[in-house]
């Protein structure tokens, strides 16, 4: 690409960035000059451009990607070109970036910084992350991009798949919640005045909404109709503060006066009904509630008096009793549930709404279906004593290849011996055959019901061996077993992987192996390109 001398793109030429109209035409970039020719020949006299790059002081491109603009600064004026898509723009931008220093000399700044600016921050982050994760890739990046061999765009263009793969994983897997209770903060006080300050972050709001449905509901009901967001949270923290003082009488008094405040202090009704739903689904070997229903010593007045009976006195404050221990349990439950919605934290209202929706869905799921075969099976498994019998996991003999190089070498020698003559063709054919068979086998066992654990086990050991062998093959480090497969087969293997990932979610090991392979493959391509 660095040999490209001319770039021609369809653009719209504008005199300012905010110009709604613009002139359609063709932009032609060469090493030394750029030229714009309008489609409408009548405008060619007024709008046509043909300038030298060395007159251009600098260039910019729009950060927000719509519309993709390229802005060239001339000492006489500015030129704006709107492109059809970002790729075109980036291409031209890179071209311009290279052209300017060549012709413009010292006036133009270094290429890299403006380039970085133009990418969306998410894209940037993704690239950075990839580089951080992979030292080899980082090395390449340093070598090529910093060494001005490739432009940033070009470097990543060949690794599009890496970026895409990453993106697709990202969309499927949501970031979990933090383990700590971040909303459980102590107020900060400046020590002089009689006021305390609470800091609230979107992450905290998310946690509060997820863990306290009553607060979420109150928010949806009263903001912004009855009060502003700020008032709402002030009230919330006021309630928290009251609660933290453990002065239940004062809290009760305040709650009696202020109905909205009371919502924050009272037991969470939505939570209580959720709890009732959940308790029905609980594993009977854990169900202590059933005990309560069975135990005849729990008739009031029977049995020995125990610790908890003394609370009966404060029945009037009962609705206000909310222990910290309950909050801890609730928090852990929410963290365990994970992020159920995919809304950017920040917009409080949409977060609240999305959470309310997802809860509704969960409740619906919980209410239908009485039988719970999964825990029935689990009880049976739990009842067994594991070491008194053959293991219940799929019977798997450990794959034991002491020296993978020996192993693969010998296999190759075998192959070559048997198929001397048309060996190349034949070997390819047979690998595809072999691959076809294994694929059939997998799809067959998928329909027939190969247990996902088993599949995982096999693929795990397979990929592990492949990766081990790859590193130990020494003399030819980039030769992987997967390379011997035809490219069709490789794509199929990806499909298989996708299918498997549906069966069994814990395919990280496999993923890692494939990612490695993919990277290798990318490198190979690069090498091929260079050659």
């Amino acid at each position, binding site marked *: 690409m660095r040999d490209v001398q001319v770039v021609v793109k369809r653009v719209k030429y504008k005199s300012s960035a905010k110009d709604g109209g613009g002139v359609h035409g063709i932009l032609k970039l060469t090493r030394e000059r750029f030229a714009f020719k309008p489609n409408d020949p009548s405008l060619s006299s007024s709008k046509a451009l043909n300038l030298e790059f060395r007159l251009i002081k600098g260039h910019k491109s729009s950060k927000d990607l719509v519309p993709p603009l390229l802005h060239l600064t001339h000492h006489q004026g500015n030129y704006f070109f709107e492109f059809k898509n970002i790729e075109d723009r980036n291409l031209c931008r890179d071209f311009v970036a290279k052209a300017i220093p060549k012709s413009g000399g010292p006036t133009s700044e270094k290429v890299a910084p403006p380039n970085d600016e133009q990418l969306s921050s998410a894209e940037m982050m993704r690239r950075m992350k990839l580089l951080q994760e992979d030292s080899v890739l980082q090395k390449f990046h340093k070598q090529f991009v910093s060494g001005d061999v490739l432009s940033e765009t070009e470097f990543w263009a060949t690794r599009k798949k890496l970026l895409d793969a990453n993106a697709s994983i990202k969309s499927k897997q949501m970031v979990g919640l933090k*383990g700590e*209770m971040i909303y459980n903060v102590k107020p900060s006080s400046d020590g002089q005045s009689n006021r305390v300050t609470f800091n609230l972050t979107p992450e905290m709001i998310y946690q509060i909404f997820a863990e306290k449905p009553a607060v979420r509901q109150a928010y949806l009901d009263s903001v912004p109709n009855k009060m502003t967001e700020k008032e709402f949270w002030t009230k919330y923290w006021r309630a928290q503060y009251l609660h933290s003082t453990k002065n239940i009488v004062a809290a009760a008094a305040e709650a009696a006066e202020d109905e909205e405040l009371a919502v924050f202090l009272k037991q969470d009704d939505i939570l209580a009904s959720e709890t009732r739903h*959940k308790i029905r689904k609980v594993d009977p070997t854990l169900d202590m*509630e059933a005990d309560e229903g069975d135990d005849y010593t729990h008739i009031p007045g029977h049995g020995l008096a125990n610790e908890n009976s003394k609370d009966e006195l404060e029945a009037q404050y009962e609705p206000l009793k909310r222990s910290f221990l309950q909050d801890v349990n609730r928090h*852990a439950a929410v963290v365990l549930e994970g992020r159920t919605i995919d809304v950017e934290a920040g917009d409080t209202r949409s977060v609240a709404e999305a959470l309310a929706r997802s809860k509704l869905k969960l409740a619906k799921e919980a209410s239908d279906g009485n039988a719970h075969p999964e825990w029935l099976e689990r009880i049976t498994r739990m009842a067994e004593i594991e070491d008194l019998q053959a293991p219940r996991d799929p019977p798997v003999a450990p794959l034991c290849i002491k020296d993978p190089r020996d192993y693969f070498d010998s296999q190759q020698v*075998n192959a070559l011996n048997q198929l001397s003559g048309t060996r190349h063709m034949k070997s390819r054919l047979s690998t595809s055959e072999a691959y076809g068979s294994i694929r059939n086998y997998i799809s067959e066992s998928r329909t027939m019901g190969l247990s996902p654990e088993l599949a995982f*086990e*096999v693929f795990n050991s397979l990929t592990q061996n492949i990766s081990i062998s790859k590193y130990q093959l020494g003399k030819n480090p980039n030769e992987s077993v997967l390379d011997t497969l035809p490219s069709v087969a490789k794509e199929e293997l990806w499909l298989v992987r996708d299918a498997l990932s549906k069966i069994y979610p814990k395919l990280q090991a496999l993923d890692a192996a494939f990612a490695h392979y993919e990277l290798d493959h990318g490198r190979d391509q690069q090498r091929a390109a260079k050659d």
Partner: protein
Amino acid sequence: LLNPSLSSLPSSSPSITNIQTISLSIHTQNTNQNKTMKFQIEDITVYFPYDHIYPEQYSYMLDLKRSLDAKGHSLLEMPTGTGKTIALLSLITSYSLSKPSNPIKLIYCTRTVHEMEKTLAELKLLYKYQLDNIGPSARMLALGLSSRKNLCVNPDVVSAENRDSVDAGCRKLTASWVRALAAENNGIPTCDWFERYERAGSDAVLPPGVYTLQDLRVFGKEKGWCPYFLARHMVQFANVVVYSYQYLLDPKVAGIISKEMQRESVVVFDEAHNIDNVCIEALSVSVRKQTIEGATRNINKMAQEINRFKATDAGRLRAEYNRLVDGLAQRGDLPLGDTWLANPALPDDILKEAVPGNIRRAEHFLSVLRRLVQYLKGRLETDNVEKEGPLTFVNAVNSHVGIDQKMLKFCYDRLHSLMLTLEITDTDEFLHIQTICDFATLVGTYTRGFSIIIEPYDERMPHIPDPVLQLTCHDASLAIKPVFDRFQSVVITSGTLSPIDLYPRLLNFNPVVSRSFTMSLTRDCICPMVLSRGSDQLPVSTKFDLRSDPGVERNYGRLLLEMVSVVPDGIVCFFVSYSYMDAIVNSWNETGILKDIMQRKLVFIETQDVVETTLALDNYRKACDCGRGAVFFSVARGKVAEGIDFDRHYGRLVIMFGVPFQYTLSKILLARLEYLRETFQIKEGDFLTFDALRQAAQCVGRVIRSKADYGMMIFADKRYTRHDKRSKLPGWILSHLRDAHLNLSTDMAVHIAREFLRKMAQPYDKTGGGKKTLLSQEDLEEMNGNEGMMF
């Protein structure tokens, strides 16, 4: 070993050999998963549903078998995690199968409903295996029994919030008079399930099989029969009945549920280390202000009812009077729907005579009750703690309000009769007056082994007046005596019965076999440690003077913090009481330790709300299953410590913070200690230590499920270093407690934990090599052969 589906590949292809060799790692054979054991123990053929058996299971069976032969009682301590339950079930069912002419019935008592479910799950496994191997002759009926709350399928009834309301809701639909009314009048609702069950008559039976509560409900729904009444009916025909202790020990319940069990039954009390407390609870009653108020309301309500009946149906009251004159026991053949809790006193102690004349008339009885309630109310208004024996109390009642001992004794039966006569169905509203009558009957029946304690307030919160009058039983042997007398074999078994000679004294019986088994381990899979010092080398303890020391709280927090970063999966912490746990969690929260712990693992806490605790446990298991890891905070003597297992990855480490002594200033405990000293010559200190250590052992013992499992136990209190305390731990824990682990500080404990976990993660030989910790059928046959040669 080739996978069958892969053998269809063209074998000429070289690369296939590659793949095949890799695929060799799968061999999906499921051949003969049911290769299980069948062996002789003396004259009994035992069917055991596993491929191997632990040697201690074998000797456990042997001892159990001998006690069955001797038709005597036995006391067997067997470490947790050695498959006690399956060994027991397997032997007793096999015993029954071997003697088809005289099959014995197994009554298996668990402490909790969830343990019942676990037991039935194991029994299901066993039953399946026996059916497969013996055929139809192995058929049996096994079922769990619980209350209406857990068995009812009528959605209108079961939705009520507690057991009493469900009971009452059921009675409102099934009481004989309600049904009689409904027969005449279409508008009166009845329970469809009960009606269909009644109509089916003798056809309503459960086919052979093993039924958990869930299975019973499913079966009931399918057939349209009431599962509760069906189960109650089938209990007399079942080969195995699993229910909770109260159904045998509490006379109120045993009187209705268990009265028809035949003598030729084996009664098993599993996890019986607390059995003395259950016995005592069954015969104890307490009366509070609310009880008095409620009882007064109940009496007024009954008075109204009596007046109403006098006006409309005076014949009914006269009929009742005549029945009582004839001395007819009220608890004769009542229709199924009418029974409720029986007399709180033990059957042998109830005199077979007619209700005394002065309480036969309903209004007279009510006035007696009024006077009694008034008297109790007066007694509650005291400023001092009072303690007296039942005799003194009865005399005082007699001299103050003129109610003699005999009238007191008949209170419960008389109330029962009256409530039937008045056709009261909302029994849940009448609990308070029932409590008063329970109290009266017990105090009128027993002259020894009880005391009455009146406390104006809780010792720990003297500023809150909370008067309570308690009738407490001190003698555990009272409640269990009828069980020992009635059934030919009673087996008391648990992982913690040390010292084993104490139980026969507490329960007053003579076991024919009394044995404590040790654990043969393939590898040292349990690692008990005593941690006496924190990370700053200062002693840690929950002793009264150190309890609220911030240094101790911090050291405990540091210990847990270090451990959450070292130990994978689940960690369980036990605290000595709810209040202590609450305080320490709050303090950890203040100091930020809790936050640090949360960064490593999720935290779940047992609260006093069972529903919440159940959900917390469920989530805890999920967190351990998915690999997130979690810590569970629980309380010794609490509900979780009582019956939830933390085996496998659900508990790799248990930390017992402190020594779980009972609250030693409690008047009830002091009275009991005094009784124990005077009657059994058991020293107070000994009993308290014994009681604390059995709780501690019970808490930590829940980590092991089998010999393939592993777990650590940390006793975090300097008092465990003392020999007199430590030696009360069961032998199987003591034998793994190395001298080097007796006096550790936090950093040393962390080091040991690291080492231990690394060692346990290695693959190992399950059979134990030369040590013989797993026996196969051949091994057993060989052993039997050798024994034969020896004799």
